[in-house]
């Protein structure tokens, strides 16, 4: 029933609905025609349903091994496990564009469903902008990357999937990352709608913030998952390579983080309005250009998709319309927006401005490092590389002040503050940071690592202090503290948790700079020592898998003679692809990862030797745990009653929220 033709038809239908969604409400809003504007939610939901049908029919074709569909024949195979048949749908270019469009459709439907309390003209315009963007991507999908194209004669079996992608972590990575990228389309649409209306006010800031926070949570999780994937699949023991694909996700994350902070200033103080609008446009523009420029092959990356310059021209045209159009509108309308008032540098809003300056400088640095090589190559015909040394030397000095200000920013009151009372409250956190610094001097090597570790503990301690101060912990009776904690707005708790999450991630990064590793070529039975552990290669065996054969090593790790773990790193040879992957063995106790990789086999069959790579990675899990905590903090603040989109203004504000906000 769900044939590829139905899927193709549904996609075309979605494209038409999206065009209608983009035009009719826009006309309605400018003519103040309530009937035309009222069509917006229905069209958005209809578009989402059509895309859902289209996506389901592609999944159905993949699950039923319909190799007459070119996309399935090229990327799937009968022997592929069911899970990867489903997730493989978005593991290739065509399918991932369809997933991208589906998520954009879901965003439009979400605004339609949850935006009932928005002013009708604003809601119509937001939905219309989302519809226009969706039209472009659905056209791209239909014309240059049709996932439903048939081939004849259909092959008996498909060509299979890149084995590197055959991994549960990567299977769910794209949907989460894309939700983050595409989610920023909603703040973008709000920004465009505000420019069309020519009005940005505190209410606009309140409406746009939850959408930005939600997208930010997904993007944070997506980046963390990608980093975790490269850690345990690529088998190099590294977690971040400053690769263009990784930078492409980091750049919108940095501007997105700036956006969720500057939107607070718009909401509370009606300042930074034009800047916030620009950030919303920039974040989505970076999301778009990052993902799509990577596909066009301009950026040299290890994870690149198959490149096709012709496709790149279409993408570039599309980006030109979306980004160029929105920036032209910005250049035309923004100067006429009323600028916000001035404010004292030492205040909550002053701290948030500083946060924005530092985050955007970081973004500029990462952007420069990423774009410099292709630009140099274009202008001066020179190929150069920008790698870890550049990024380490430029990003850490910018990040350190950010961490320091993150400590006391949330404790500063609005409008006009004095630094000294806040610093007095933070004496305990300062002592913790100083102690951490002292310990780090002995434990870590490298000035930047020591400073990062101290800054991380400062952020965590300051976040805890913030909550303790607000609940008067240890000063008032316990019952009072609990009562105050319950009255505390969730946004405040979420902020503290997210900031503490940053500290945990940074602590993990600082400790990982001290990771130890060793590469050896040994016969079976040898014991190697690394980081106080004895690693013994006990045996290497051949084992068959579902669509590969594996060479599995048994690696015993002992500490002071006591068995810690038996690790089984392996090397898989995939029959259908003539490709091998390494399967890393990781043992973690949450304080450190023991990480073993089996490499090539050398020497005669009678007495072979094996290349082994052993890593000791202190606090490695904390890097990703911290990111999850950040996302959790964001999600918690989303559940704050004040953040709910268009939450009815309750008559009596709770005492706690009026005193802290």
């Amino acid at each position, binding site marked *: 029933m769900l044939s590829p033709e139905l899927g193709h038809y549904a996609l075309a239908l979605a494209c038409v609905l999206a065009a209608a969604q983009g035009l009719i409400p826009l006309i309605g809003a400018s003519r103040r025609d309530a009937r035309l504007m009222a069509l917006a939610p229905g069209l958005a939901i209809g578009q989402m349903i059509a895309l859902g049908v289209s996506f389901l029919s592609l999944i159905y074709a993949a699950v039923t091994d319909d190799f007459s569909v070119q996309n399935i024949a090229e990327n799937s195979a009968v022997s592929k496990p069911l899970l990867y048949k489903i997730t493989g749908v978005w593991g290739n270019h065509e399918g991932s564009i369809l997933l991208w469009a589906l998520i954009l459709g879901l965003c439009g439907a979400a605004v339609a469903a949850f935006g009932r309390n928005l002013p009708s003209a604003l809601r119509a315009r937001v939905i219309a902008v989302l519809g226009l963007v969706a039209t472009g991507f659905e056209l791209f999908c239909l014309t240059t990357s049709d996932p439903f194209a048939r081939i004849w004669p259909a092959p008996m079996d498909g060509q299979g999937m890149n084995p590197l992608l055959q991994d549960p972590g990567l299977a769910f990575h794209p949907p989460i990352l894309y939700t983050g990228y595409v989610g920023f389309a909603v703040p973008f649409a709000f920004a465009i709608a505000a420019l069309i209306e020519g009005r940005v006010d505190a209410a606009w800031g309140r409406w746009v913030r939850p959408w930005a926070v939600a997208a930010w949570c997904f993007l944070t999780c997506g980046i963390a998952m990608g980093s975790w994937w490269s850690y345990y699949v690529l088998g*190099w*023991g*590294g977690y971040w390579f400053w690769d263009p694909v990784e930078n492409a996700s980091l750049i919108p994350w940095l501007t997105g983080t700036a956006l969720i902070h500057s939107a607070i200033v718009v909401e509370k103080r009606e300042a930074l309005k*034009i800047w916030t609008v*620009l950030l919303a*446009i*920039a974040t989505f*523009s970076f999301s778009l250009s990052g993902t799509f*420029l990577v596909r*066009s*092959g*301009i*950026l*040299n990356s290890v994870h690149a998709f198959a*490149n096709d*310059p*012709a496709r*790149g*021209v279409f993408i*570039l045209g599309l*980006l*030109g319309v979306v*980004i*160029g159009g929105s*920036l*032209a509108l*910005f*250049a035309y309308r*923004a*100067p006429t927006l009323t600028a916000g008032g001035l404010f004292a540098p030492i205040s909550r809003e002053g701290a948030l401005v500083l946060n924005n300056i530092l985050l955007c400088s970081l973004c500029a640095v990462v952007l420069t490092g990423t*774009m410099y*090589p*292709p*630009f140099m*190559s*274009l202008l001066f*015909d*020179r*190929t*150069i*590389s920008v*790698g*870890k*040394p550049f990024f380490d030397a430029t990003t850490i000095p910018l990040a350190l002040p950010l961490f320091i200000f993150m400590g006391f920013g949330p404790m500063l009151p609005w409008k006009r503050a004095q630094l000294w009372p806040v610093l007095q409250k933070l004496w305990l956190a300062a002592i913790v940071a100083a102690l951490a610094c002292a310990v780090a001097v002995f434990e870590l090597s490298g000035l930047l690592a020591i400073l990062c570790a101290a800054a991380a503990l400062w952020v965590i301690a300051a976040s805890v202090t913030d909550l303790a101060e607000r609940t008067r912990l240890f000063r008032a009776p316990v019952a009072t503290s609990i009562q105050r904690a319950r009255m505390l707005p969730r946004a405040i708790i979420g902020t503290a948790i997210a900031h503490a999450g940053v500290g945990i991630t940074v602590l993990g990064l600082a400790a990982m700079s001290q990771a130890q*590793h*060793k*590469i050896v*070529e040994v016969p079976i039975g040898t014991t190697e020592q690394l980081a106080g552990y004895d690693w013994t290669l006990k045996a290497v065996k051949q084992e068959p898998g579902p669509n590969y054969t594996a060479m599995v090593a048994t690696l015993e790790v002992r500490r002071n003679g006591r068995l810690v773990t038996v690790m089984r790193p392996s090397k898989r040879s995939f029959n259908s692809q003539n490709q091998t992957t390494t399967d890393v063995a990781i043992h973690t106790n949450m304080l450190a990862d023991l990480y073993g990789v089996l*490499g*090539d086999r*050398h020497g005669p069959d009678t007495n072979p030797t094996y*290349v082994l*790579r052993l890593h000791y990675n202190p606090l490695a899990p904390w890097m990703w745990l911290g990111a999850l905590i950040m996302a959790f903090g964001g999600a918690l603040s989303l559940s704050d009653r004040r953040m709910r989109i268009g939450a009815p203004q309750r008559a009596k504000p709770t005492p706690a929220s009026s005193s802290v906000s």
Partner: protein
Amino acid sequence: MTTPSDNLTRRRLLMALPLAGAGVAGVAFWKMLDGMEHGSFNPHDINAPVLDRPVPDFTLAPLPPAEGFTTQNLQQLDKPVLVNFFASWCIPCLAEMPTLMTLKDKLTMWGIAYKDKPENTASFLRHSGNPFTRLGDDHTGRAGIEWGISGVPETFLVGAGGIIRWHTAAPLTDQTINKVLLPLVQRLQTP
């Protein structure tokens, strides 16, 4: 004194800056894509500019106790030498080392430590083994620019007379060595 209209003009110019920036980037990307289609610009295939050309002029600091090398040394070669750019901070380089160690007896290899501290290079080679008969230190990355490398590891096969015969920007694997590199060395050595 600035009049309100001056002020507005200035604001207009300021607000148009993002558009101008995006426009410049867009034109550059279009040039790149256009070049990729016509084969004049290829960010992946860094072979083209160096292949079958003489080695560039470069200077390297020596890394005692190993002997250093210069452009002249490469120009005076009578049999092929593999020149490998590596760094202790580069994990793929580490992964490549055991492979280079197995190649040591079949091919002469000279190493260039790229943007690395001498003590880190020394400890890197102590741990992973040293396949190089000569070593140079490119602490500033200048030699890397002269050679036009895009990152580390990168490997060049320099033939007799100092002509670059082969190049890869990926870590060497047993497969590349046996299928591509060694047959090429064989051909270069039998005139």
